[in-house]
């Protein structure tokens, strides 16, 4: 899904965008808030819910992007920032996603990403951190409504080197990236009380992808024993990894940062969408090396059809779905399979 940002973020680095640099320490709660000087940024909540109808997956994503515009235009409509958001509910009983999208240029108090702490609003959609330290999401789309609170049970994971996460072989190809696994979910979906476990991904950057990359795969897992696994890889046209990375944090809190050599990703379980005709490897087998030991995880999706088509609002077709592995569950993201997204 991060791929969507690439549509809004041309690869040209404008001098006015802040560069991603190593050694910049993360500060909270300021880094929960927006970083408008960077080109792109996202707040990405995924997770599993326990509902009266059984387990369901959900995705709530807010994006901020800063168009490459430098104009003396005094109009309040100049799109200095654009906010957009996607939300989806994965219900195995329905067999495919319910999803909705919103987009607006920031301004007039209708769309805004606050600096200083987490509070992103887009009309009547909102994701924010309350004074109680909990995260809250409130939004509604066609046929579903979320009113959820996320209570942290663990600390954040600073990905890469203290939050500086490389995304490619090039020096500047990186992002500021932290994750917040094992968020306890409580609240209501469509008015009915639910519980569950969620994952927050926060990333901001001005230069994300290698020019050869056509898409990426990402996996975030809340393991039943309290540990957390993050895996990602950048693919080239041939489908092989240009770059890979991730992390493992044990139940004891020991963080292992994964280098490209520590991640193996075997695409598999190809499913073809009847709508977009794209083929998605929805049952990959991934492996990670923690210490000297390789651990292999066969990924099983909650259902094959978790494709999300955001082309109507200018985005790509991507696959974002609830998955399980032995001893854990989380979310898998696949992009760049419907078409090479090179702009």
């Amino acid at each position: 899904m991060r791929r969507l940002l690439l549509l809004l973020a041309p690869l040209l680095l404008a001098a006015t965008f802040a560069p991603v640099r190593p050694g910049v320490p993360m500060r909270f709660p300021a880094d929960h808030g927006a970083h408008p000087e960077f080109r792109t940024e996202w707040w990405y909540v995924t997770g599993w819910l326990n509902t009266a109808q059984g387990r369901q997956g959900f995705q709530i994503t807010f994006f901020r992007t800063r168009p490459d515009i430098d104009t003396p235009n005094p109009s309040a409509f100049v799109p200095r920032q654009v906010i957009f958001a996607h939300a989806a509910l994965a219900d195995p009983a329905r067999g495919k996603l319910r999803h909705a999208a919103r987009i607006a240029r920031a301004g007039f108090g209708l769309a805004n990403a606050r600096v200083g702490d987490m509070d992103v609003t887009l009309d009547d959609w909102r994701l924010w951190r309350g004074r109680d330290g909990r995260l809250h999401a409130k939004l509604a789309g066609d046929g579903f409504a979320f009113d959820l609170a996320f209570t942290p049970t663990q600390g954040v994971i600073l990905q890469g080197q203290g939050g500086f996460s490389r995304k490619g072989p090039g020096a500047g190809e990186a992002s500021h990236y932290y994750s917040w696994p094992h968020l306890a979910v409580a609240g209501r979906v469509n008015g009915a009380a639910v519980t569950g476990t969620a994952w927050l991904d926060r990333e901001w950057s001005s230069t994300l992808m290698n020019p050869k990359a056509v898409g990426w795969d990402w996996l975030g897992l809340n393991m039943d024993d309290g540990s957390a696994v993050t895996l990602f890889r950048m693919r080239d046209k041939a489908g092989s990894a240009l770059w890979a990375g991730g992390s493992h944090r044990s139940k004891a809190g020991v963080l292992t940062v994964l280098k490209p050599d520590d991640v193996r990703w075997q695409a598999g379980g190809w499913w073809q969408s009847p709508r977009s005709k794209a083929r998605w490897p929805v049952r990959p087998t991934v492996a990670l090396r923690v210490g000297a030991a390789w651990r292999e995880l066969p990924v099983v999706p909650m259902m094959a059809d978790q494709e999300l088509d955001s082309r109507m609002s200018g985005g790509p077709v991507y696959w974002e779905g609830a998955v399980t592995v032995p001893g854990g569950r989380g979310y898998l993201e696949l992009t760049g399979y419907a078409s090479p997204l090179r702009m």
Partner: protein
Amino acid sequence: MQHWQATGWLIAGEWRAHPVRIGLAVLAIAVGVALGFAVHMVNSAALASFGRAVASVQGRADLAVRARSAAGLDEALYPRLARLPEVQAISPVVELPASWGRLARPGSQARGGRFTLIGLDPLRALRVTPGLVGLSRAGQSGVGSRPTWQGDAVWLSPALQRATGLQPGDAFTLTAAGRQARFTVMGRLASAGDEAQMAVIDISEAQWRFGQVGRLQRLDLKLAEGAGARLAVQAALPADAVLATPEAEASRADALSRAYRVNLGMLALVALLTGGFLVWSAQALSVARRRPQFALLGVLGLPRAGLVRQLLAEGLLLGLVGAALGVALGHGLAALVVDRFGGDLGGGYFNRAQTRLGFDLAAAFGFGALGLVTALAGSIAPALAAARTAPAQALKGLGDVPDPATAPRAWPSLALLAAGGLAALGPALWGLPLLGYAAMALLLAGGVALMPALARLLLAPLARRGSAWLPLDLAVRRLWGVPQAAALALSGIVASTALMVAMAVMVASFRQSVDDWLIAVLPSDLYLHLEAAEAGGLAPADQARLAQVPGLESVRFQRVISVRIASDQPAVAVMAQSGDLTMPLTAAADAAAPAGTTRALISEPLAWLYGWRVGEVHSLVIGGQQRRLYVAGTWRDYARQWGAIMLPLADYRRLTGDVTATEAAFELKAAADAQTVQAALQAALPAAVQGQAQFGRPAEMRAVALTIFDRSFAVTYALEAIAIIIGLIGVATSFSAQVLARMREFGMLRHVGVPRRQILQMLGLEGAGLGLIGALSGLSLGLVMALVLVRVVNPQSFHWTMDLALPWPLLAGLVAALVICAGGTAVIAGRRALGGQALLAVRADW
């Protein structure tokens, strides 16, 4: 019933014997149906494409909040409305009249045009008016990628792209609100429809480059279901915004041309009515001539009902053939008219839309049925009269001669005339002069029905005195003695003359009044007008530069802006004029304006449409607030049918802060050369508006205005010419029929020794006499009907008044033509009747 077979034989026999008369009746119906159908088709096609164009520019939102004037709305309304729970989606829009190239008067070679410039936020518009969001060259929506809708990007509607001939990547220089900017064409608004001339840019660019920062002209809304939603939005609106529902928009589009369409439709019906008269007179004559035939059939055993059936069947056949022919003819005519004149028949109402003609089956049937009904109605009276005749007398030749001793009754016709007079006094119904038209129909019917009595009254002195000259004596006695027969021929003449005269007088009055008005409203030496400059024209610095051009004695600036008073009515023009408001007024108040009000003049249409009266105080929203206006006078205005309000420029500037001007009137120094001054003024204009600037001198402006006037009345003239031709042919045929029917009489006259020459003279005199009576009666009736058109129909449909002007040479020519035509036809028919068969005619009964 085998009677049908006999009926068929008799009809076939009759038609074979008189193909010209039958053909004429068919043609009359066909022409009426064709005109009605064609006018209807052209109008509905034009209205539909106008509606589509309006819908395209609006992008088909559920509902729109519109600014009352081009000055727009404060953009703070946007978040306020967006937060209403009833508003599901909202899209703010800057909408400006704009132009490209060099706008020129009709006929000039310069290339350019007007269009609607739309500035919108594609991200918002996607959920409300997706049709307005442009597609990039790759066919992808411009949203989301590197914002291709940013900066100098512009998308063109298909119609505008065709007009400009621009391709993606080309530069497009456009002018709006007095400013010029260059954009790059990104692509086409594929789903914008074929009619609208429209370009779409980003809302921030539209605000910045055209001086609209902080302003919006429109907010498109998608509302939650439920009746309360509109009320909630309505409650949140400031004074300078109106809620424009699709119904109101449709009604506005309809109102724009309704009166014009209805009037043309009525004219077409008048043609149909004339056709009905012709059918009636053709059938009545044919029945009169065939009376012995019908009597024979009665004696042989054809029941009366069978006779009525036969005559109605004749009428039905006439009607069917005429209606079918008329529908075909009408379709062809409509296609031709749309091709040559455009969808508004040259009326100028739909200049931004292109018209597509479709075939409207329901309307075809409707107008065809109308033709059929007309033909049947024309046949029914003669049929009943024929059935009433006693067959034995008719067979002996007694039944068809009315007793000269019985005077025709006048009171039913006088009652019709009185009813017509009363109807003319009635008010407009549903905004249309329906009672006025009813008055015209009643007057026409009454006038025609009065003819026998009138003819007798007029001829009485002549008949009493007699004449020494045999032909004249015979002619007068015949006319006096058989007024019913004369009335048959007269009715056609009277009806068509009356209609012709009414139309001619109305058009002449209108044209004269427009001409007088043009002279009155164009007192200066030179005028400047900026086209498509609604949103802003000349800045004060530009105005100052113009004022300093050498050779000018004085200059008066004017700012014209359109303001919506009611959401379902077209906007009215607010004209702020510097200097004294000097206009030839039709009504004026003596009192000074009350404190706290602004002195204003209103046009006649405005007074009609909104019921404002001189001396009253009304409020008008300008500069974002309700302002109190004191109506100090009304002036006659033919230019703005939807109303205009004139204010002092200083007051306008004080109220709105808008200091631009869109028009200027220059007085030149006595020695100055207008051409030189105009060139200097043109050079002094800012480059941005040079393409929009149009200079005019009163003489040429008058010429242009009258050319446009004549073009827009071209269809009226055509209808009038057709009515005249039908009328003259009707006169000719009814005369020749009557003459041929009197063969026996001529034979007798020759037998008793009247020379052939004298019989022809008698016929000529009879014809001319009838023509004169008919033409003079038609003239008087036509003048009364013209009065109804001028005093009732026009004010009620177009909300303006005019002075009656009589085109005497035309009217005199018309009368002379009718007299000559009637007399000449009688003589020609008489020659035929007297050739050889005349002696035989005495022996044979028919």
